[in-house]
């Protein structure tokens, strides 16, 4: 089957005052329908840049990105994004924050309310629809951001270190929630992280990036069946994958 996203020989050069900086170069990557792809790499190796290229926020200076086999992304239902900070609008209630993408797409907002409420229940936000973001903890705010990323059933979910600002326990809760919602609605997702354990636990495939300029160093398939259990972390096989990816990252 044709991959959902094909990234071919992509280079991104940022122009800044002291000349140009090649953030990523010669990146080839396929993202297949229904797959969770983890991207790990050290800080500054171009993970966010690669994600922005996929999102169409940054134009590659060389190479191309092809969605659904076409250049204009026919049949592509858009993307959902989740960043490290929840980026909620403080003057809107939780429900209205979640419905923002629908509003921006000019679709009928009211008809999405049932879906929003269902998502909220699934993600553990039941009863918070009329709260304001500042009334919620950081973990709860990130759940709202996850609902907002999913409300329009995007074809592709892009996650940029979404849990790195959370404490360890909340983070594990969020891993399980994310995994559940991804399986339930069969999302295709790209998860950028610098946490190897997170990448191995959640991904079908882990892409290891190296820096200067950013490029794909290796790809490691993680064969465990999804959904996975938090207990997997204490098994030998899992830790072998973590160790393997750690050594691929180099120093």
């Amino acid at each position, binding site marked *: 089957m044709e991959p959902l996203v094909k990234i071919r020989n992509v280079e991104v050069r940022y122009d800044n005052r002291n000349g140009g900086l090649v953030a990523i170069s010669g990146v080839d990557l396929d993202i297949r329908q229904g797959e969770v792809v983890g991207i790990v790499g050290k800080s500054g190796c171009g993970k966010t840049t690669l994600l*922005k290229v996929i*999102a*169409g*926020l940054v134009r590659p200076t060389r190479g191309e990105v092809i969605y659904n086999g076409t250049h204009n992304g026919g049949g592509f239902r*858009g*993307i959902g*994004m989740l*960043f490290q*900070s929840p*980026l909620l*609008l*403080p*003057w809107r209630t939780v429900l209205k924050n979640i419905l*923002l*993408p629908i*509003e*921006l*797409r000019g679709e009928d907002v009211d008809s999405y309310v049932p879906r929003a409420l269902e998502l909220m229940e699934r993600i553990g936000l039941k009863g918070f629809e009329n709260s*304001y973001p*500042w*009334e919620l903890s950081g973990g709860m705010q990130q759940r709202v951001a996850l609902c907002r990323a999913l409300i329009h059933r995007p074809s592709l979910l*892009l996650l940029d270190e979404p849990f790195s600002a959370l404490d360890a326990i909340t983070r594990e809760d969020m891993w399980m929630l994310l995994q559940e919602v991804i399986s339930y609605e069969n999302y295709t997702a790209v998860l950028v992280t610098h946490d190897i354990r997170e990448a191995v636990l959640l991904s079908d495939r882990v892409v290891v990036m190296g820096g200067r300029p950013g490029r794909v160093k290796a790809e490691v398939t993680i064969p465990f069946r999804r959904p996975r259990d938090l207990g997997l972390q204490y098994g030998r096989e899992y830790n072998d994958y973590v160790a393997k990816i750690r050594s691929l990252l180099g120093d």
Partner: protein
Amino acid sequence: MVSKAKTFSSVLTLLAIGVTWEVAVRLFNIPQFVLPAPSAIVNTIARYSNYLLYNLADTLLASALGLFMAATFSLALSVVLAYSDSVREAIYPILSGFNAVPRAALVPLLALWFGLGMVPRVLTAFLIAFFPILVPTLTAMITIERELWEMLVAFGASKSQVLVKVAIPRATPYFLSSLHMGLTSAVVGSVIAEMVASDRGIGYVILSSTSRLDTPLAFACLLLLALITFTLSKVLSLVERRVARWAYRANI
């Protein structure tokens, strides 16, 4: 409900200042035309109440009209300048250049063009109040966090959607709080205009009373002006907290 104790201590401080002032004036026999005692000022307010209120109302009307114009114009201009980077780059330097012109110096010109009536006073209030409202409002509109902006674009937002759904709501508390500065600026503007080119208003009364060495009347004007501006500022704060409650979350 933090404020009860604070209000009480402010009132107490004011009372203490008033009493000290009164005692000092009597003790050192300070002539009234140099520094009138608080009791003399209050007496004057009572005696001239009609005259003072009439002129105060005049000043307030000029200030209010000027402030209204400044607020409307700043808001509209902020939206335009936030929408178009190129228009902003072209116009903003001109505006800051204009802000460097001492507006008080324009009053004689305004009087020359528009006579001694309401118009030069409203215009002076407008010209002084406008910039302090524009700057914070526009700044709030154009400093949306990069990541938020990218997320909105990724969701398919157009430039005008970003403006309407994010930039303008985001700027609302800044706009409202800038109205405090705008209010005091507008009052300063109309009072200056009244001093230079008017036969009415608190500014005119201050000027004419000091030229007659009627210092208590001048002080009465200052006191009333301060009181009313303070009260209006409080009203603005109430509106602010209603309209942009989310911006005060830390204080709730």
